[in-house]
């Protein structure tokens, strides 16, 4: 369940899940495989690195039953991700899309030279 206090915006969505940003708590929510998990910004990117580092070909080649699944337990979350190959690929797609949107948002903000709401703005005079 997503925190009821959260003020969240959609970052990226696929058929298999979604990533939301909570601008109140400054975190990302991952909605995937029937559960939602909150990540701090750096934890989110570390989690993505872990998912990207899963050796898919080793999972395919290895015929033992334990190799059908990979387990990722991100720090500071109550969640334990048990992923088969399909789930790894779906999660990768979702996280890659989310990362792209997050970075795009930074670039857009920079290009528009958006001043953060609470930052000091110089007074403009109207003529």
């Amino acid at each position, binding site marked *: 369940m997503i925190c009821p206090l959260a003020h969240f*915006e959609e*970052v990226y969505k696929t058929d298999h899940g979604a990533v939301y*940003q909570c*601008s109140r708590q*400054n*975190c*990302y929510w991952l909605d995937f495989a029937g559960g939602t998990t909150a990540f701090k*910004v*750096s934890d989110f990117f570390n989690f993505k690195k872990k998912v990207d580092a899963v050796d898919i070909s080793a999972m395919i080649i290895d015929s033992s039953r334990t190799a059908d699944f990979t387990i990722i337990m991100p720090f500071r979350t109550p969640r334990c991700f048990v992923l088969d190959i399909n789930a790894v690929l779906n999660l990768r797609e979702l996280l890659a899309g989310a990362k792209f949107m*997050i*970075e795009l*948002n*930074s670039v857009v*903000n920079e290009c528009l030279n958006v001043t*953060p709401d609470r930052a000091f703005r110089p007074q403009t005079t109207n003529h």
Partner: protein
Amino acid sequence: MKDLLRLKTSLNEEIEKILNEQIKVEAHSSSIYLAMSSWCDDQGYDFSADFFAKQSEEERTHMLKLFNYVNDRGGRAISPEIVNIPADFESFRGVFEQMLEQEMYVTQQFNNIADKCMKVKDFVTFQFIQWFLEEQIEEEYVARRILEMFDVIGEEGTGRWEIDKHIPKVSYEG
């Protein structure tokens, strides 16, 4: 949408990565110089052993300087894993040749970092690494000067003893 990424870190992902790589290079230098110090000590080159021990310490401060910078800018500095440090070296001269090669490699790395900074327009990091680029002038100079002593004094007879004795006097005036 609120820019959470920039609130967390001012470091571009690539810059953070390349700085972490450099942290590893500095730590590697530190370990190699410590190994060289031990070898020189074992061979009876007391002054050189001191020289390399000091170099080793300096490299560690370089590492920490980078380490703190990465963290201060909101990135995550990685404590490096150092492997493949030799315990034995071919010759007295060879040790200094290896030092020069190591320093030239470090200079090249910082040039690469400067280049990357320019490409992503990270002038803050660009400014930060100027100190290191400057430092490299001295590092390479000292290594070259010492190598020249091997030619000027010669290694025959008490030559190596003489060279060792002169090592602490080699300095860069700028």
